[in-house]
């Protein structure tokens, strides 16, 4: 190779490299600026048709960026005013509360949403609206535990379940939200007693709600705690799946319910489209689609839940107090650490 050839080669290669680099940067950074960007913690629930329908209807590009709710919260927070997110969707109330408190969400007034959505399922200031509801309740083996044998959260702490209780890990958003809600409603002392009674049963701690259900089905545990839609998914796969749910605390305050919710990001410069997307997703037809796809409960009254879950009958749900529970998040984490819920 001659020297001149090399110089030509290096400069051509360099130019090509720069062009390719720019191309890759552009290709992987979403697409145009004329698109609605949704940071969604729901994105790994598989295909959710309503988002596609909205994009098809309005002709807008819609980009879903996935991650856990807390990852997305941290990302928006660190991106600050330059974030490209227009809408944030979480799968739990705690991260909505965090996002609101951090000033990430813009208050949104929509008469339509206020009419459709019950009061405790939206932020009083309009920072967020619930999209779906998820009940966290008692799961039992249909083979080894009679219906009604355990009917309360406190019942999971009875000594007869020693070595027979399965729980998801204490870092799960759903468990943290559950505990924070208990602290807000019943105080730290009563909550600590409940948690200690569970821990006294030496629960097997698993990585996901689905694993809790599988452990019950396989006979490694008899009872556990999980979100109802995980059972719905299992039953949709296999109608003879040997696990049933019990609606907890029906004689007391009702079953604990968490929510997947969404709000408009304050730094968004496409707020009108963002609002339109939210209003679209809250329509009865789309609500039914969410319920069908992920077996959750719709937030709009009158929309039927998925048949797999409807078969367990209706239930009384505990009230949702996102602000109250949010203020107890730190206390909840401390308590769970203290009682050893890993």
């Amino acid at each position, binding site marked *: 190779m001659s020297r001149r050839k090399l110089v030509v080669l290096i400069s051509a290669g360099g130019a090509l*490299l720069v062009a390719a680099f720019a191309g890759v940067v552009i290709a992987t950074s979403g697409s145009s600026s004329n698109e609605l960007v949704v940071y969604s913690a729901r994105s790994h629930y598989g295909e959710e048709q309503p988002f596609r329908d909205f994009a098809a209807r309005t002709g807008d590009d819609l980009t879903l960026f996935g991650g856990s709710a807390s990852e997305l919260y941290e990302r928006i927070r660190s991106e600050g005013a330059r974030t490209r997110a227009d809408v944030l969707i979480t799968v739990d109330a705690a991260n909505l509360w965090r996002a609101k408190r951090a000033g990430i969400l813009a208050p949104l007034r929509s008469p339509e949403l206020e009419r459709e959505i019950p009061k405790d399922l939206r932020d009083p200031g309009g920072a967020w609206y619930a999209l779906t509801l998820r009940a966290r309740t008692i799961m039992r083996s249909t083979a080894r535990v009679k219906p009604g044998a355990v009917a309360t959260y406190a019942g999971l702490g009875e000594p007869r379940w020693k070595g027979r209780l399965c729980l998801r890990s204490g870092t799960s958003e759903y468990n943290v939200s559950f505990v924070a809600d208990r602290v807000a409603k019943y105080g730290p002392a009563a909550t600590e007693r409940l948690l200690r009674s569970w821990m006294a049963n030496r629960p097997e701690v698993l990585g996901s709600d689905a*694993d809790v259900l599988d452990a019950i089905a396989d006979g490694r545990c008899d009872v556990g705690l999980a979100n109802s839609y995980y059972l719905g998914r299992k039953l949709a796969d296999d109608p003879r799946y040997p696990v049933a749910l019990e609606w907890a605390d029906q004689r007391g305050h009702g079953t604990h319910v968490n929510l997947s919710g969404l709000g408009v990001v304050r730094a968004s410069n496409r707020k009108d489209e963002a609002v339109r997307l939210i209003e679209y997703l809250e329509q009865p037809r789309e609500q039914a689609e969410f319920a069908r796809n992920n077996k959750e409960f719709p937030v709009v009254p009158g929309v039927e839940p998925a048949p797999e879950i409807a078969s367990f009958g209706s239930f009384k749900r505990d009230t949702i107090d996102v602000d109250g529970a949010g203020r107890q998040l730190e206390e909840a984490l401390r308590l769970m650490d203290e009682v050893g819920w890993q």
Partner: protein
Amino acid sequence: MTSATRPPDGWTAVTLLCALLVAGPLVGLPLSFALAPGGLARFSGFVPEALEATAVLVAGVGAGTLVLGTALAALVSFCDFPGRRWIEWALVLPLAVPGYVFTLFALGLKLPGVRSQLGAVAVFTLVLYPYVYLLARSAFLAQSRTLLEAARGLGMSRRQAIARVGLPLARPAILGGVALALMEALADFGTVNLLGVRTFTDAIYRVWFNAFDRQAAMQLATLLVSVTLTLLLLERFLRGRARYQQNAARGELVPPVRLRGPAAAAAVIGPLLLVGLVVGAPLVQLGAWSVQAVGRGLLAPQFGAAARNSLLLAAMSAVIVPAVAVLLAYGVRASGSRPAALAARTATIGYGLPGSVVAVAVIVPLAWLDRRLGDVAGSLFGFDLGLLLTGTVIGLFAAYTVRFLALAWSAVEASLLRVPRQLDEAARGLGADRLDVLARVHVPLLRAGLVTAALLVFTEVMKELPATLLLRPLGGDTLAVSVWQATSESLFRTAALPALLIVLVGLAPVVAMISLSGRRRSELEAAQAAGSWADAEVAA
């Protein structure tokens, strides 16, 4: 003229700049202790927990890979049995299976007891033993016949000779391999996170994303780095001795013992079962799940984008990282200065470092730069730059370069070392300047090293999970990220196709290595090729 009075050399400057870009962020890690002295106190429970899990992993994976890797290496080096040539290469294949993919397979099949520290030890042992195996094997094959025969002449049985001469001679190589396997295990995030084992990498993730404390995450990362650096130093020390011994012990090959009957059958079936379990079964199961996923519409909606992103990121990194490596390696050679050599050492420190550590180290300076750049662009040109570094894949490329530079560097350097210095001098004496030497002497000779480097970087980037997860920009999901997300939701069928693609791509360098060795005549050469491949793979 002495080097002290020489004007600053261009190549030294280039080398120093590379080192600064790569190692600079890492130097910032310990600063977090100064910036937020009490940061870690809030998470006081995390450190003993992580130390305990680390101790269990080090002991379990260390013992597991040591025994499995050495035994298999001894089997294929000292014994002969039908199909040995195939089996000795098949035993390398598990390197292509990332821990989190095997975990997906094990969790999806509900293998009992996987979700535990012991489960993690088993997974790591199965996918990481090839490091020990490769290094031990090349050490065994490099041992001279004369030494073992001398031992037998002194009255030892063949078995005694292997146990008392062969194994001790290979000890540095074996322990070096164990150190590498341990570094990989400690750097892992996907496996431990999915199995609920609370190591440092998992703690870093939880502190960052459940408690939103970056400073504390950096402090945890600093602690992890100190553990990893100890292993790295140990490995370099042992590897140095291994090299010396290999070179000292030349001679004829040891003739292998021919196994017959049940022994031969066991020698064939055992390794095949192992490779079948670690590579074959996951491939078949993932294939079956993929088919189901496609049939039932369970693929993640972003699958296409994730596959595209993985390929683009890997291909681009396979160009960038080796290019930096050539600059670095050539800079050291051309300048011959001590600072340049030191800079190269520093720049290649990143490989032993876990992806999550690199991500934490890279994001803080980049975010700071981003703000400055944005302000400058805004005030000077009235132009909104957005997040140029952290909002695009540029941040990711920075992390990949930090993490995989050593990999490319050792491949490039290995081929550069084979070019004798006299050749440079001869060319210079004939009137060529340095650029001429690079063009007409080095580039043609470096080609093989560059291809190896590109291939290694490509597959590593395809597999990389933690840094990608933490730094990926909007729309930047990759196959590895989709596997992890779907698996953590127990959606095994959704995770299967991306996982399958990762394994298939990962098989490429292993298969390339096998076909390369087929072309070589001498077994010793093949063994050394394997050794240098392992070298490159693990970047000593």
